[in-house]
């Protein structure tokens, strides 16, 4: 936790003394649940803000915590809410914020490399079109209820 805060502070200091970051990430968290064990899956949530005057597209990410990282949306398919990868990524309009939240858009982590327990912290690099990669450290795993349908993989969705 101490390490986490120092890292966040460093990010803030950089943000303060240079120009605003192109994309700012705030209140990021990752869900800890029975599904977030090694080999399983989870998702990253929080707010991404586009500080530039042009649209930026979130295309995916990288993390040591997972084998596969994809930008997902919840969509109504044949009358049921299903999760699917967003074709072409998620647009963050110029000067605006998007919310990644349970039941909505999220950064899906699959093939977790280790058990992700409540209170653990991971690092994630967000990839964009129109902005440089953004590394965020100290994303804390929070116990959260509901939204298990989000964890159905594309294959399982096709089976349904």
């Amino acid at each position: 936790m101490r390490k986490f805060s120092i890292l966040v502070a460093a990010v803030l200091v950089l943000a303060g003394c240079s120009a605003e970051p192109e994309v700012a990430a705030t209140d990021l968290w990752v869900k800890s649940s029975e599904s977030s064990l090694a080999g399983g899956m989870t998702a990253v949530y929080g707010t991404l803000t586009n500080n530039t005057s042009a649209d930026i597209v979130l295309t995916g990410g990288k993390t040591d915590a997972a084998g596969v990282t994809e930008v997902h949306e919840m969509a109504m398919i044949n009358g049921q809410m299903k999760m699917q990868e967003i074709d072409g990524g998620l647009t963050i309009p110029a000067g605006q914020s998007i919310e990644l939240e349970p039941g909505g858009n999220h950064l899906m982590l699959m093939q977790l490399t280790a058990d992700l327990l409540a209170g653990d912290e991971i690092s994630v690099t967000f990839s964009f079109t129109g902005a440089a990669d953004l590394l965020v450290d100290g994303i804390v795993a929070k116990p959260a209820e509901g939204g298990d349908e989000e964890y159905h993989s594309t294959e399982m969705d096709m089976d349904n």
Partner: protein
Amino acid sequence: MVTRRGFLGTGAAAAASGLVGVAAGAGATNASASQNLETFVAKRELSFHGEHQMGIEADLQAVTNFIALDIKPGTNKASMLRFMSLITDDIQRLTRGEPVLADPAPELAIGAARFSAYVGFGPSLFSKLGLQAMQPEGFHELPAFKVDKLQEQFSGGDVLIHVAADDPIVLAHGTRGLVRDSMPFASVRYVQSGFAHTPGMVPAGITHRNLMGQVDGTANPKFGTKDFDSVVWIDEGPTWIQGGTLLTFRRIAMQLDTWDQLGTPSKEEVIGRKLSNGAPLTGDNESDTPDLAARHPNGLTVIPDFAHIRRAAPAKDGERIFRRPFSYDAGISSSGSVDVGLLWTAYQRNMDEQFIPIQKRLDELDLLNSWTVPIGSAEFAVAGGVESGEVIAEALFS
């Protein structure tokens, strides 16, 4: 529907809200002053960071929950540290009136309302985790007292999160967030809910009146004094407890049906203080020092031998505690008897030298025992405070 505000107009409404004396003629100013008066509770924040955890050296808030948890099998030091890192972050956000991270209902974070929370650990936690060597001096399960009629459902606990706020919605929502983040590590043993006065009901610093009618907490050390530090805050022993304190938590049931049969003079003799203003029977003001030697012309002591304040008075230097009692109201029976009492707390450096000798004297003789029955009891060692970036009790679980 015509609201009172709409009907009276802005200036009149401000006056009706109690803002008499605000300069007339500036309708907009009055309206905003009225708004400020209505929401002043929401805006008041208590400070989270510092040498001590919050919510102890502070005026009573309106409502409170004592949340006792028992750790799950398999919970170890490493998971306790993860547990505490989540709770530390949650408390920090709640004290600012913000939603916790991953709050499923962030719209309920409507204001700080002097939200406070601190964390303590029961003797059972130290034995479960093999941390007896880190247990503070003078901290252990209390001995049995004759007056006790303890119930398991109100007693014990491995971990205590004591939360309080000036608003019941803020309290309920904060409690839910803290409990949600505790569930990977522990289960709820009990939640005991209580209350004190609503903000604005009595001036700050005025002693709370309990449901027996007594002014309760008079001889407490004053906030911000060396006296308070010397009674409450620990400054030696293992690092994690430095800046912390020891809490004795008792659920004390009041027998109001029989208490109310006493007349005012009898009620006052039981305590040794006047009901009207809490002054000792030998004085005029609450702050007057009781004269335990004073006698009536007939030779009887003015403050009787059985009086609570005589029995509770320190037998030697340092034999004092800081009390911060909330009331509870657990309902009314079909025959009209109220189930009320105190969520009574004593904060101290060393239970062997402070609470226990006092309670032993009260256990031997205190007429008040006839109407007050301890039905719950627990002890918690409250970790020291944290600075930004630190985790509560980090040094205990690292």
